[in-house]
């Protein structure tokens, strides 16, 4: 009986303590110490964490940029091994703010831990259809390809075609150019391994598309193939039409 009474006292005390942390979090979501104590209490109480998932989702709704609440969510998943709510949660957060850094970080972590890759390309495509300038979605695409496939010639070629589709729609969208150039450079390929992409860029230039991203891509392509004079001319063009970066274009010219 004494043991039982003691257990009740501890649990009741802990429940009160849990309520205290709720109040403290309400006053200051960034109090990382209180969140830690809350986790200790939750572990001691050994309760079903269903309510805690609900609570965290509410805090995320009102404070979607708090490091602490997202980390707390990660801890809950580690405790319960249950990621079933997370894709829905991050999708919901991202529908309010499609670039929320914490939401993307959390989504990536869940995908990687639990291998929930199915449907992810469709999700990215949906986001890009909504806003093809969403750089977070582009970054996420790189992450998904990187995690599920190898960056071999075939993959890069396919991804270049994907990027080209979006470049055509909006030639002044930096995100799609960064993706195309990035997948080549980061994976240590060279442009001449992708003649279709080179032709695509040349054609855009012939069609008189005005885009500093096109010019700098072409300049890199020409430099790589030894056509320094053509690269030099493009840097001249860039010094004029993208003059905020004049010093950089001069630097690149001097490297030729």
């Amino acid at each position, binding site marked *: 009986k004494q043991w039982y009474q003691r257990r009740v006292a501890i649990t009741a005390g802990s429940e009160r303590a849990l309520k205290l942390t709720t109040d403290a979090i309400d*006053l*200051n*979501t*960034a*109090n*990382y*110490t209180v969140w*830690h104590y809350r*986790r200790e209490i939750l572990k001691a109480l050994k309760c079903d964490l269903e309510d805690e998932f609900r609570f965290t989702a509410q805090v995320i709704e009102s404070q979607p940029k708090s*490091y602490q609440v*997202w*980390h707390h969510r*990660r*801890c809950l998943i580690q405790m319960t091994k249950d990621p079933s709510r997370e894709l829905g949660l991050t999708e919901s957060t991202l529908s309010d703010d499609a*670039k929320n*850094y914490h939401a*993307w*970080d959390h989504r*990536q972590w869940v995908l*990687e831990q639990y291998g929930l890759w199915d449907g992810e390309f469709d999700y990215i495509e949906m986001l890009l259809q909504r806003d093809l*300038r*969403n*750089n*977070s979605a582009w*970054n996420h695409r*790189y*992450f998904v390809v*990187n*995690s599920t496939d190898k960056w071999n010639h075939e993959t890069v070629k396919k991804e270049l075609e994907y990027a080209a589709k979006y470049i055509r729609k909006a030639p002044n*969208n*930096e*995100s799609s150019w*960064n*993706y195309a150039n*990035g*997948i080549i*450079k*980061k994976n240590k390929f060279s442009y001449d391994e992708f003649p279709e992409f080179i032709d695509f860029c040349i054609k855009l230039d012939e069609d008189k598309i005005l885009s500093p991203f096109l010019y*700098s891509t072409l300049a890199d392509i020409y430099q790589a193939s030894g056509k320094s004079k053509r690269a030099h001319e493009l840097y001249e063009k860039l010094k004029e039409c*993208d*003059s*905020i*970066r*004049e*010093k*950089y274009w*001069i*630097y690149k010219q*001097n*490297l030729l």
Partner: protein
Amino acid sequence: ESSVEKIYSACMGKTRFNDTFPLNKQRHLAYLHKGLKKLSVNFECLDSSRPWLCFWILHSINLLGDSIPKSHQLLIKEFLLSVQHPTGGFCGNVNQLPHLATTYAAVSAVFSLDHEECYELINRENLKRFLLAMHNNDGSFTMHLDGEVDVRGAYCAAVVSTLCSIKSDEMFHNTAQWIAQCQTYEGGFGSRPGTEAHGGYTYCALAALILLGETRCINLPLLLDWACHRQMRFEGGFQGRTNKLVDGCYSFWQGGIFPLIHHILEGEKSTLDRSSWLFHQQALQEFILYCCQCPSGGLVDKPGKSRDFYHSCYCLSGLSLAQHSREKVVVGDAANLIKPTHPVFNVVLENVEKVLVWSASQSKTNGNKIVEND
């Protein structure tokens, strides 16, 4: 863009860009000194960030060339002592856990004071223990006990251990390799491997790698290209990520990348123009002066946003970097020149020199014990 456009058109209408346009030093100082003394109840959300408030305000006052009365410095010393955790590191407030970010802020705040006796408040042995405890096997750092991992941790640990002379190989084992994994296909760095290239995290990654002497693992041309493209061609200020909005604080996080890249490139034979940075220093200063000053003192994210001490600190830090290339560039008025800040630590240069001397003497005398036993 339209709020910025209104400002630039108004300025071009009334004055020309080469007429004087002042940095309102006195008004900013009034705001800062008031903030140091007391903060209203609205600041509850920063209740776990009090060392940050110390640093943001002290550093801003230093940049503006003003000083803090010794009596205030001693009060600050007392406060920072009160948030130093008995087991090492500094907390967001009393009765909290130590945190790497508040530790960085507290240490930077201490070194932003100009009385060396204040430096002694730092318990170096315990601090070293705290940093070691936050270090993970894969090289990353956890921000606090049971806390999150991201690249800010490596930066905070690298700065603090360098300035206090408590660095060790063990403390940074695998760290450079972990940081290198944070570089994305865009060239900037994210918070963790896989996340989007972002100005704040990129600055932390680069500065940490420089402090660790491990810059060979960076794809430098890719980083430089990304960083140069973060300056907004219309506004002149920097954005944090591709296709996002300009924000005054990135004047430092993104602007700060350039002196760091210069430092690395100067080590190699290069065709670098050593007299200036590779971004448009004038345009950045124009953005800060015209668009980021609050008329009643303090600086802001962008027109229409309210002032705060974080933006005051980082707009001024960015302004300082933009002014202090080898050849000075001072926009608006010669009197706008502010003090130079150290691009790696973001503490005013004159203090860093003092700190490094003090810190070297610490490790020679009682510090040797730490180095040998661990």
